[in-house]
């Protein structure tokens, strides 16, 4: 019997963008953009574009909240494939510009923010986040 297929990375990306849009994007205003790639199955690599230096507390908070989003993704995957227990790992890198790696997808940026805000939360456009 064929095992039920869970959502693909492409299918999960808009939901993750929405969650980052709601929680992380307004909270970490120093971030210029966030990129994501699936390095291995159930393992995501984030790249945060930021020029200003941040202290450990700031990165720890970012790591915690990104982790909460991925826990949400785990719950979603568990629902779509009953009797499974998904575990998503994530790593975070940061720097002034995203590596020229074609595998990275745009998770959040000013462009993505405007696209989502225009459709779902136009009031957010006023304060830019």
């Amino acid at each position, binding site marked *: 019997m064929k095992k039920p297929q869970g*959502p693909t990375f492409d*299918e*999960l990306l*808009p*939901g*993750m*963008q*929405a*969650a980052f*849009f*709601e*929680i992380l994007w*307004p*909270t970490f205003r120093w971030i210029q953009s966030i990129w994501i790639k699936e390095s291995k199955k159930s393992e995501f690599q984030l790249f945060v574009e930021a020029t200003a230096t941040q202290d450990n507390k700031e990165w720890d*908070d970012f790591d*915690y*909240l990104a982790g*909460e*989003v991925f*826990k*949400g*993704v785990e*719950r*979603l995957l568990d629902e779509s494939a009953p009797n499974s227990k998904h575990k998503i790992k994530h790593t975070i890198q940061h720097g002034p510009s995203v590596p020229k790696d074609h595998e990275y997808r745009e998770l959040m940026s000013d462009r993505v923010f405007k696209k989502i805000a225009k*459709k*779902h*939360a136009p*009031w*957010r456009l*006023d*304060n830019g986040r």
Partner: protein
Amino acid sequence: MRRQLTDGTPQQRDVVLAQLNTLPVDMKAAIVPDNPAPDQTRTFGINMDASMKAAHELRGEGDDENVTGAGWQGAVHASEPPPDSPEYRAADAEARQLDTPSWEELGFLRKVGVAFERFDQENKQRGAALSADSAARHWQQVQELQRRKDAGEALNVREEQYLLRNRRAASDLAQAVSRIVEAQRNIDRLPTSGALRQLLGASTAAEAARVLRERPGEIAQALGVESLPALTLSLVTLGVLGPVGGGLVLTGGGGLEGYANGLIGALTKAGVDVSRPDDLVRALQDKDLMDRVRGEATTKGAIEAGITAVSMVIGGPRSKGHHWVPGPIRNLPNLSADARKVFNDAFSGWYGEPHLWSKEHAIYNQGVTELWDKAKYNLSKMTKQDARDFIDQITRSRDPRIAPLRNAIIDKRLRYERFLRGDAQ
């Protein structure tokens, strides 16, 4: 009734005459003393065009604002001043004003109760309007057959049977019209918000969409939680089937309701965001798309998808999700205007279900209030940046009273986005 006969609009008089026509002769005389005697040739006729126009106006399809605005009054008690006297009108207006509390005066539960009552009355009204449509068609046919018969033309067997079967068509029509009048009267007695009245009075999907777009917050609040799915179904079927189809869905016609759900599911699958009136109306006007959607709408998958869609759009897409800062803090009297604005604007976007009170929410509010108390802000001098910092503290919080609600919003956003893209079907 007497008052409507004496000083009502022509449409009102026609409706009353239609009602009178169903009554025994002695009762007619009691209501209208100057009614001709039974042996006189004058009869109570039904002005079909005017009756149907009145029925349409009652459903909000007409262009005469005075009909619903003035309300439909009941029978006049004999001891009251004459209906056309200034005293009567003043007292009547005052009484109706006193009887109907303003929408703003109602508590949440009462508002929900009113919304349900309104929904029930509207269903009755729409059902009666459809009965009236049907009875009117029968009555017109009967009139035509009777005219031919009176002119000496021989009717065939089927026509005679039709005449026999529909011998009560006129009274059926009058009864249906009187049910519309009664339902409208009950609706008029219910308090309502101006925005809701405007929405319910919309005669086309485009008009309803415009009202929804311009006054979404008031409408979502006024509707409570029960009417928007019906409204969405109605919007879709109005566009596809016309007003009768839209009305039928609201009267609970099982087959049409399934079809309407199927239409919504098929529209969703075609990439239309049915939670957005603009998108919906645009789609309804796209003939090619609607031709495809109609073909798909009767499939089981589309119907199931539509049912999901309808449950997801309850509350409306622009309804505010979750305010990060609880109301008691946002409404503190000494809070600076800058901080209040930041707090009022800080809420999660729509995530596909109404944001209602819950135990988790109460615990969340308690946690946030403690966080607020610890911060000891100078309320009157609080800057925009201070307010943003406080919201940051909430969203970053690992407090077990605060974090679960934030994470629930993450979950809902993940699901809603998948739903909107059709991945979750």
